[in-house]
């Protein structure tokens, strides 16, 4: 199989998941219990991504500049600082820590 066909086949397969959710009858997915499950799934998957993006590097579990940056972000969200400001501050803190340490 060529690399090109692999690119196209895998893209189609990834797209099939996305399409699948829209083909499920709306009556079924607008059930409040399914809505609750969807919210729980979103929070679980994103929280897992936050954990991986903050504590895991290519060499395994690691504590580095990302950890204080995320802690600061949590504090700023708690203080109701606007979303975009928090994201920029988190990036700046991580970048600065990497310059100095």
């Amino acid at each position, binding site marked *: 199989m060529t690399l090109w066909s692999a690119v196209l086949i895998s893209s189609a397969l990834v797209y099939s998941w996305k399409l699948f959710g829209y083909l499920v009858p709306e009556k079924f997915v607008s059930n409040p219990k399914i809505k609750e499950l969807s919210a729980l799934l*979103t929070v679980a998957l994103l*929280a897992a991504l936050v954990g991986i993006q903050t504590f895991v590097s290519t060499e395994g579990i690691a504590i580095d500049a990302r950890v204080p940056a995320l802690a600061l972000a949590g504090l700023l969200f708690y203080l109701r600082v606007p979303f975009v400001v928090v994201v920029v501050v988190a990036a700046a803190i991580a*970048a600065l820590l990497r310059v100095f340490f």
Partner: protein
Amino acid sequence: MSSKQQSVTAVSLGVGFATGVYAISFGALSVAAGLDLWQTMALSLLMFSGGSQFAFIGVIATGAGVVPAILSAWLLGVRNGFYAIRMNPVLSVRGLLMPVAAQLTIDESNAVSLLGEPDRKKERLGFWLTGIAVFVFWNIFTFLGAVLGSQIGNPTDWGLDAAAGAAFLGLIWPRLSQSKFLALAVSSALVAILLSEVLPAGVPVLLTALLAVGFWLFGMRGGKK
């Protein structure tokens, strides 16, 4: 436009840019893995799912061949299916818009939309703006990464890895005031971190879906807690 909608716009564009810039890494790594510029662009335009794209080129780079690369990309795409089930009744799209909505159904667009709940207008606006913003920035920066390669430096030098974590934290933040969601978020993060030591990239995140199902079943059985 109300101030609430303005803030949806700001969040959407902020998420779109922060996520999109990360595609510089993807573009550079993809070319380094042996894909050409157009194969790299095809992945960002057609697959358009960061986790699956990084998995695909990661497997190709190890020399394991195309079949394992296809399978890992496919497996890691499952969570978009969960998001699509959530977005389906929110958008209620028909006709030609449906396949477009499907392509834009990713972590970021679903999460910004969830932020707008229960205001249906904000849920829809957040989904479309974020989906389009991520798509545009993701493809622009994929191109730049593929063309310029390592000349532009590593995204971690700019703290972009920390920005990605902070952005996702901000998107789930309003939910964390409910103890059920807070407990689920903390346990999911811990489980994913620990499993990352023994399982291939991407799989630990997917497995936390089981935790969500567990919390869901527990909530139904116990009623209110």
